[in-house]
């Protein structure tokens, strides 16, 4: 009889299967990462390297893209540039090599700040409203509950842009066009349906006995919700928040239509950069690279809440 070195259950995949599955995942990850990596590389190229053919993988890194992203420049005669004093910082010296001077900051930072405020604001609002209504749908006898839930879901059955014109007219009439509040409300209304459905699933799984025990122990229903339900729903809330944030952060069509000078977000702004001084792909790539950072940070921060199974086992089923 041969000796068994590793005991493993029949439902567990074998080592070969695991290696095969693992290499598929790695392959998929590599394919999806290539465009991102290319954008990040382009951000550090010079404009000439960015459009060279064949494409350059090895190149001399440059911060010109970031300089062009954060500044506006004006073209000057070489005589005028020579008449100026020493360059003011790195970006100024890069600009002067191209016979330009830095005229002032670009709109990237204000647009980025708009994006942060609108995306995080609408995420907080959508998750808060979603959690409360999901709790209501999960725990109370709501008249026409199934129909209401279907109605909420049905708001996602058409592309949001299908209602763009009514929303545009409505916003213009009530003065919400090109305001951060208007964009927050818009993204909240799109996301809240997703939040209700996702969170209802999570809250349904939390046994009612927890709240009942808390209510008998001297807490009101709302206090029980805060003390007992919310801590156990963190996994669901974190996952929902990430989905809502990604939508609001990346949304382009409504942002183009409804915002301009005041509340414009980064997505409609980034493509405009290319027009300011020719084929400035490095600046676009730099804007895109920085644009990824908040989502990555947010996802990494919430990552541990996304692991399921932490709360399992306290109630026997």
């Amino acid at each position: 009889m041969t000796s068994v070195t590793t005991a493993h259950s029949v439902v567990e995949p074998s080592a070969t299967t695991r290696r095969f599955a693992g290499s598929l995942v790695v392959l998929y990850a590599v394919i999806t990462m290539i465009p991102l990596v290319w954008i990040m590389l382009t951000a550090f190229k010079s404009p000439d390297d960015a459009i060279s053919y064949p494409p350059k993988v090895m190149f001399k890194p440059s911060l010109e893209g970031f300089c062009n992203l954060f500044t506006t420049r004006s073209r000057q005669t070489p005589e005028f540039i020579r008449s100026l004093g020493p360059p003011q910082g790195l970006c100024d010296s890069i600009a002067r090599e191209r016979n330009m001077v830095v005229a002032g900051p670009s709109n990237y930072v204000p647009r980025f700040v708009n994006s942060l405020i609108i995306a995080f604001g609408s995420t907080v609002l959508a998750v808060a409203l979603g959690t409360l209504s999901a709790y209501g749908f999960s725990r109370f006898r709501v008249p026409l509950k199934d129909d209401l839930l279907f109605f909420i879901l049905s708001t996602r059955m058409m592309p949001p842009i299908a209602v763009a014109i009514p929303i545009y007219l409505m916003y213009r009439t009530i003065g919400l066009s090109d305001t951060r509040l208007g964009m927050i409300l818009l993204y909240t209304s799109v996301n809240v349906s997703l939040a209700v459905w996702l969170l209802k699933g999570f809250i349904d799984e939390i046994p009612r006995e927890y709240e009942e025990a808390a209510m008998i122990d001297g807490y009101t229903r709302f206090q029980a919700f805060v003390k007992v339900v919310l801590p156990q729903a963190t996994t669901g809330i974190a996952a929902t928040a990430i989905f809502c944030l990604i939508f609001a952060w990346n949304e382009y069509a409504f942002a183009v239509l409804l915002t301009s000078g005041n509340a414009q977000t980064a997505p409609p702004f980034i493509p405009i950069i290319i027009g300011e001084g020719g084929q400035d792909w490095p600046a676009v790539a730099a804007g895109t690279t920085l644009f990824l950072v908040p989502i990555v940070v947010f996802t990494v921060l919430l990552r541990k809440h996304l692991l399921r199974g932490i709360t399992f086992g306290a109630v026997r089923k």
Partner: protein
Amino acid sequence: MAEVEINAVSKAFGKTQAVSDLSLTIGDGEFVALLGPTGAGKTTALRLIAGLERPDSGSIRIDGRDVTGDAPADRDVAFVFQQYSLYPHLTVFENMAFALRAPTRRLPEADIRAKVQEVARLLHIETKLDNKATHLSGGQMQRVAIGRALVRSPSIYLMDEPLSSLDAKLRGELRLELKRIQVDLGATILYVTHDQTEAMTMASRIGVIEAGRLMQIGSPREIYENPINAHVAARLGQPTINLLPAALFAGMPAGAETIGARTEHLTIARGGGDVSATVKRVEHLGDQSHLHLDLGGRSVVTLADPEAGLGAGDVVSLRLNKPLFFDAKGGRVAA
């Protein structure tokens, strides 16, 4: 601790009548067990008293105060759930302190610590206080669940089959402990169970509940010896009471359709009894044996001395010894 009075309470869920016209008074310091099968309305009765359900009719008074419409938090009751329901995000200490930290109480932290430690010692979980509630064995979790109720001094403890998810040995141990604690604290407890041993050993009175109705309430001895109908008789006793057609025996009282014969009502002899029966099977349990008999096509189970040396196929004779009599509807008929 206080008296709890349930007066003609009914509750239906849709078309299902969970509790019908339930009246019950639990005296101060009394341990009352509600005994009945699954779905009999035992848990609903507890939830009505706790305020987790509103009765359709009837009233509930705790310590003389009508609490029928009050929120659970305002009733001063403690509840031990069947499925532990420990908060998984809190430690054992935090679980037990949860009720004491309620906004309505706001006890000083030092008092909370002292109280939790006192109860933890009582339940032998004082070394587990810093553990996450989920990192405990089933028995320990159930102790914490009981401890969470014991840290308070409510009017009444409501316990919903708190021992049912434990293994037999642990259940036996906790049963004794729970009774000891109840006596020590003088606690008023309404305890719901489908386990007759728990009801018989712990309760000062047992209420037998069936299809939402309270059939009979009395001391364990009363319920066992003097059941008002065949349902109640079948609830208590191990092995279960044998219900046999009266026609099998001669000289039965008028109106008696069914004879209820527990083990102690049957005398087995090798010959010379009222009727004869054939041994089908003998189950040896160690100190005693279950004897399965065939009596005119009816199955009869009784206890026998393991020394009797009976085996399958043996013919024995049975003599009835003051059995119980029931009429066609299952009601009791006097002997």
